[in-house]
C-alpha cells in the first residue's frame, strides 16, 4: 500500500484499502475559517446534533477578512466566535493570537503523522507535509464531520513525484511544485494523492515541504503528502512540546510494491526559480523567461510562503536596500508567533526600512480580500498559490507567482528579476 492508503485504512478500521474504495474515515482534526465556518455552523444546526463530536478536535481560525474589514465580515466573525464559545471549542484562535490556518496548525503542534485532517479550505492539503492525510472540503462536509467525527472518502490513486539532486541557491519548495504543476497541468492530479519523495526531500526544510503540499490542490489533487522522516518527527515533536501537546504518532511509508498511478521524476539540480504567468499556476516558466516584466505590487505572504524561511530570505535581499519607487511591497508574516520571531531577529525592521507595508497575519491580499486588492490593469508578483483571473482584485489585473527571493528582488528592481541578477540591475 501507499502511505496514503495505510493512513486511510487505519482511519477506516480496515486491514487494507485500494484506490476507488469508498470508506468512512475517523477524523483526527477538523478545521474551518471565518469564510467557511459560518456556513458550516448553519449546516451543523440543520443536521440537528446539539454538540460537536469532540470539542478538542476542532480548530476554528479567523484568517481571511480579519481584523474585520467591514460590518459584513465582522458579522461573519461574530457567528464563528459565538459558535466557538457555545461549543467550548478548545482550539479557537482569536485575532492577535491567530494567523493563517495552514501555517498556524502545524506551528501549534496540532497535526502529526498518521492523522486524518479535514479542513474547510482548499489549502488544507498543506498539512500533508507532516506525513498525515489532509484534504479540503466545503462547509456542509465540514458540518458533517462536526456532527459525527467521520467523513466518507474515496481512496485516491497516488501520483508519486521523485525529486533528485541538490537545489541551487535560489531554488526552494515553491519552485519544485511550480515545476510539477507546469508539467502535469492544472488538473493533472485530479482526485489523486500527490506523494513527494526522492533524495532531495531529506535535505528539504519543513518550510519547503509545507509549500510543496500546499499547492497540491493547484493540480487538482485531493491531498499532498511528504512521508514522515527524521526531519518531520523532530519538527512535530518540538512543536508539540512547545505547546504541551505531546502524543504518540505512527510513521508510515509507501511499501516497495505499492502501486502508483504515475511516477514523475524531477531533476532539482537543473531547476531555476520558477514564475507562473497570468492566469493559471500551470503557466510556470523559469524566471529568466519573464525577466524584465514590470509590476506595480509585490506581495510576500499567504499560506504558501509566509514562514520564517520565506521571511529570512526576503529580508536578506531587502537588507540595506529600498523598495523601487514604483512598487508597493506588502509583507505579511503568517502568524503572531512568526511576527514576533521576525521582530526579534530584526526582520520587521528591515522590511520597514525598505519601505514595505507590514500587516497582522491574515490571508487578505492572496484572495483579493483586502490589504492589497488590485485595480484594473495592475500587475502583481505574489508568493501566494493562485493567479486566476480576478483572484487578487479586478478581472483585468495580472498576477505572477514566484518564490520569496524572486519576489523580494523584484520589489527592489521594479521588474521581475532573478535574485542572481540583483547586483547587476540595481
Amino acid at each position, binding site marked *: 500500500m501507499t502511505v496514503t492508503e495505510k493512513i486511510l485504512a487505519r482511519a477506516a478500521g480496515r486491514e487494507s484499502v485500494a484506490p476507488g474504495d469508498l470508506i468512512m474515515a475517523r477524523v483526527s482534526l477538523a478545521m474551518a475559517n471565518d469564510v467557511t465556518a459560518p456556513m458550516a455552523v448553519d449546516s451543523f444546526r*440543520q*443536521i440537528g446534533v446539539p454538540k460537536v463530536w469532540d470539542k478538542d478536535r476542532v480548530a476554528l481560525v479567523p484568517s481571511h477578512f480579519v481584523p474585520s474589514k467591514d460590518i*459584513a465580515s465582522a458579522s461573519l466573525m461574530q457567528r464563528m466566535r459565538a459558535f466557538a464559545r457555545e461549543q467550548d471549542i478548545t482550539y479557537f484562535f482569536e485575532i492577535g493570537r491567530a494567523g493563517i490556518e495552514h501555517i498556524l496548525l502545524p506551528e501549534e503542534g496540532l497535526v502529526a503523522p498518521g492523522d486524518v485532517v479535514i479542513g474547510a479550505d482548499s489549502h488544507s492539503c498543506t498539512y500533508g507535509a507532516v506525513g498525515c492525510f489532509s484534504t*479540503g472540503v466545503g462547509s456542509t462536509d465540514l458540518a458533517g464531520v462536526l456532527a459525527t467525527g467521520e467523513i466518507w472518502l474515496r481512496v485516491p490513486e497516488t501520483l508519486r513525484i521523485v525529486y533528485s539532486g541538490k537545489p541551487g541557491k535560489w531554488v526552494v519548495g515553491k519552485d519544485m511544485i511550480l515545476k510539477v504543476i507546469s508539467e502535469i497541468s492544472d488538473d493533472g492530479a*485530479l482526485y489523486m494523492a500527490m506523494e513527494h519523495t526522492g533524495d532531495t526531500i531529506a535535505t528539504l526544510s519543513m518550510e519547503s515541504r509545507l509549500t510543496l503540499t500546499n499547492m497540491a490542490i493547484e493540480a487538482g489533487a485531493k491531498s499532498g503528502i511528504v512521508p514522515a522522516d527524521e526531519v518531520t518527527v523532530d519538527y512535530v515533536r518540538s512543536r508539540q512540546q512547545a505547546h504541551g501537546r505531546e502524543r504518540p504518532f505512527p510513521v508510515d511509508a509507501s511499501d516497495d510494491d505499492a502501486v502508483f498511478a504515475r511516477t514523475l521524476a524531477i531533476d532539482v539540480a537543473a531547476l531555476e526559480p520558477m514564475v507562473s504567468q497570468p492566469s493559471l499556476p500551470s503557466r510556470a516558466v523559469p524566471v529568466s523567461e519573464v525577466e524584465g516584466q514590470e509590476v506595480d505590487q509585490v506581495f510576500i505572504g499567504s499560506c504558501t510562503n509566509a514562514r520564517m524561511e520565506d521571511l529570512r530570505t526576503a529580508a536578506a535581499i531587502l537588507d540595506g536596500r529600498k523598495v523601487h519607487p514604483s512598487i508597493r511591497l506588502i509583507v505579511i508574516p503568517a502568524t503572531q508567533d512568526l511576527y514576533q520571531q521576525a521582530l526579534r531577529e530584526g526582520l520587521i525592521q528591515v522590511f520597514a526600512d525598505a519601505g514595505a507595508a507590514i500587516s497582522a497575519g491574515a490571508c487578505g491580499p492572496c*484572495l*483579493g480580500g483586502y490589504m492589497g486588492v488590485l485595480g484594473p490593469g495592475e500587475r502583481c508578483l505574489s508568493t501566494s498559490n493562485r493567479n486566476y*483571473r*480576478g483572484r487578487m482584485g479586478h478581472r483585468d489585473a495580472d498576477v505572477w507567482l514566484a518564490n520569496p527571493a524572486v519576489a523580494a528582488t523584484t520589489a527592489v528592481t521594479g521588474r521581475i528579476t532573478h535574485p542572481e541578477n540583483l547586483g547587476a540591475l540595481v
Partner: protein
Amino acid sequence: MSTIQGKVHRMGANIDTDVIIPARYLTTTDPKELAKHCMEDLDPLWVQRVNPGDIIVAEDNFGSGSSREHAPVAIKGAGIACVVASTFARIFYRNSINVGLPIVECREIVEVTKEGDQLEVDLVSGTVTNLTQGITAQAVPFPEFMRSIIEAGGLVPYLRAKLGVDAA
C-alpha cells in the same frame, strides 16, 4: 424532477471558483446576494442572460480552486438547473451534491455542444441529450454512496436520517 431541459451557456476549461464567485463577495452567505455576482469576472452581464432552468456546459476541471461552497450556491441561486462538464474539481463536485446542485460528467456531449443549444439531462438514467444536434450520450454514473446522498436530498437530510434525528 428527474429530467432537466434547458438552454446551454457554454464555457471552457478550468472555470475556477474565483470566477464563479469572487472572494470579495464572501462576506455574505445569502444565496440571493451571491447569485447576483455569479461569473461576474468572466462576464459581468452573464447573470442577466440566465433564465431559470438553464444549463451550464463546460470543459475540464470545472470548479477548480477554493473550497467555498458559496460557488455552487451562487450557480444554483442564479437559476442554473444543472452543470454538465468533461470533469469537475473534486471539492466542487462534493459541494454541489451537498447543496443539491445537479452535476453531470459527460465529455461526449460537451464536445458537441454549442452556446444556446437545447439540452436534456435525465438524472435517473444518466443520459444527456443535445436536442439541437440530436445526440445522446451516457454520463459517468455517480458512485453508489453518493447516489444515496443525492436520493436523501443532500448531506444534511442524509445525516439526519442516519443519526435518527428525525425519528427522535
